[in-house]
């Protein structure tokens, strides 16, 4: 009796080791791309820390920090083009900002402002998804549309380790594999789904091996190694673009912060584990060391960048906070293509009351 038995995990693909020395093939990129990615990582971290502060000050609402996952996000987005479709989860701000999503809009999202869901018109970025794994199917559909319409674009779905347990994960991968859809399933395995560790989320040793169920390729990459992530994502994008169908990527990373600002990770997470990732596996530190060894980076550039990042984030905060207030009556305008009569009456009702200055609020 021959058995399909799960083996142990395969090694993670790596280009750099923890201290930034090269242990694999460095992608063949112009210097400024290397530096761009680093700048994006530092800017993202600056943004993330600032957002946490804003939340503590009550200036924005619930926020899901991504610190620790910058390499996974920026490395993967670096392999996408502007007209590729992006279906992000709520934790993708680092990648999105690098891709061109304005930081002030990212803040508006956490301020509960409808404008926070809108990407600039030159991007094909879907509103961030709250419902775990739902966006994987949309990505399959969008990628399929590109294929049917003869477009070069591919679609990329971003999700976490917890998302792999949902039925929609399975249906999406199966559907994409059957129709050889140009879509990349990019999983950031950050070790946790809120309080549930990945070891309790699944019995399989890796997320990547789930690809076997769909007859497609799966790759496990060190998600804190931005070059390795770029390389793997690049390969998946090329395969998809050239008609080779979907691929599943597992970027092994770690969420250094809480799940969201409403979460207290000390309730479930081991301090030692956290410390190890924080101190020994920080993706920014690792990449900086690589750049320094290449002679592309130094302390001076670093402090200039930090200053510049702070200023960009300051600007974004200012822009977000001076954004026109959301108009409650506008919600009626985006339910249908044109507003039905009964809904128009409801809109009038609300407008009448808000104009009278009588807010509703229980």
């Amino acid at each position, binding site marked *: 009796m021959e058995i399909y038995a799960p083996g142990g995990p395969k090694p993670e693909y790596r280009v750099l080791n923890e201290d930034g020395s090269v242990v694999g093939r460095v992608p063949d990129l112009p210097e400024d791309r290397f530096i761009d990615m680093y700048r994006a990582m530092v800017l993202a971290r600056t943004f993330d820390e600032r957002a946490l502060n804003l939340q503590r000050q009550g200036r924005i609402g619930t926020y899901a920090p991504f610190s620790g996952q910058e390499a996974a996000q920026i490395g993967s987005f670096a392999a996408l083009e502007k007209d590729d*479709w992006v*279906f992000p989860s709520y934790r993708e701000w680092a990648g999105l900002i690098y891709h061109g999503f304005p930081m002030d809009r990212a803040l508006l999202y956490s301020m509960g402002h*409808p*404008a926070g*869901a*809108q*990407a600039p*018109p030159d991007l*094909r970025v*879907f*509103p961030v998804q709250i*419902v775990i794994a*739902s966006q*994987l*199917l*949309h*990505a*399959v*559909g*969008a*990628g*399929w*549309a*590109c294929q*049917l*319409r003869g477009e070069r674009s591919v*679609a990329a779905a971003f999700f976490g380790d917890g998302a792999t347990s949902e*039925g*929609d994960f399975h*249906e*999406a991968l*199966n*559907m994409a594999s*059957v*129709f050889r859809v140009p879509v990349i399933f990019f999983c950031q395995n950050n070790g946790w789904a809120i309080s549930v560790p990945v070891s309790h989320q699944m019995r399989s040793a890796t997320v990547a091996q789930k690809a076997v169920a769909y007859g497609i390729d799966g790759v496990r990459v060190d998600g804190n190694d931005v070059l390795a992530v770029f390389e793997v994502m690049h390969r998946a994008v090329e395969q998809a673009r050239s008609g080779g169908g979907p691929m599943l990527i597992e970027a092994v990373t770690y969420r250094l912060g809480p799940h969201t600002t409403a979460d207290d990770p000390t309730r479930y997470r081991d301090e030692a584990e956290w410390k190890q990732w924080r101190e020994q596996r920080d993706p920014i530190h690792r990449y900086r060391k690589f750049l320094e060894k290449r002679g592309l980076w130094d302390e001076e550039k670093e402090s200039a960048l930090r200053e510049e990042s702070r200023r960009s984030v300051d600007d974004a905060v200012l822009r977000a906070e001076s954004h026109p207030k959301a108009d409650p009556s*506008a*919600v009626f*305008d*985006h*339910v*249908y*293509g044109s507003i*039905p*009569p*009964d*809904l128009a009456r409801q809109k009038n009702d609300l407008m009448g009351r808000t104009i009278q200055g009588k807010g509703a609020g229980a």
Partner: protein
Amino acid sequence: MRQLTMIQAVQEAMRMALESDERVMVLGEDVGRNGGVFRATEGLQARFGEHRVVDTPLAESAIVGTAIGLAVAGMRPIAEIQFLGFIYEAMEQIAGQAARVRFRSSGQYTVPMVIRAPFGGGVRTPELHSDSLEALFVHTPGVKVVMPSNPRDAKGLLLAAVRDPDPVLYLEPLKLYRAFRADVPEDWYEVPIGQAGVVVEGDDVTLIGWGPTVPVAVKAAEAARERWGYSCEVIDLRTLAPMDTAALVASVEKTGRAVVVHEAVQTGGVGAEVAARIAEGAFLSLEAPVARVTGYDTPYPPPAVEDAWLPGVDRVVEAVRRTVTF
């Protein structure tokens, strides 16, 4: 004019939609090679190819979820859920996603998509093939819900749904698929979404039905006229969301009485909404409470007992009598 059955009208509408717009595609379980379990897509794959008429894997959430992505990225998918009872599997993709894409993105992205699903009782199907679940979607802003009761509307509503900028749930009463033939124009025409139709004019009581209960209401109107000389107006709601409140109110302002008939279970059914709207809009005209003749508040029963469970002509006639003599 040539006469078609409802299933033929549905098939013709899809053929014309596929012909008229290359963004239109049909996807679902068994819709391709097999032509659909009711033959609604008969011949379409042979004619338009495997890429436009697509047999999908057996996964309802995936069918709707990928159709959303297809629609967002420029296609006009017509997705089929083999039976409405299996739409529960796709609830998240419909109610959590399709219904909210326009809203969530403040109009940046839209989902021009049709979801077709047969349903309805009285044809001895296995479990979950007969359930009327329209109320779930009427309670879901962002989706439209239409339901034809005859071949002409079947074609016109489906063509309107295909051109509609929003997700439209198009529900097909399977009992009426081949129940009768009727005149169906050959050219492209649309029955506007959002408008009810007056099937029979009358003065004493308004009977309101949709889909499979429209013929029931018409027969009940005839019986009530024969037995007691009552003049019943019959309204075919046709679009359940957004609902044509004005048509309901106008009729009841004339008749002063209403009976609403649906196969779905009573509690929380669309009949309650119809009754509430009539009361809100025509309270002073009402001479009796709006009566509801519906499925009972149980799961849809097995075939051996379904006839007694369904809202039949006799039950409607009784309700008319009770309402007039209230």
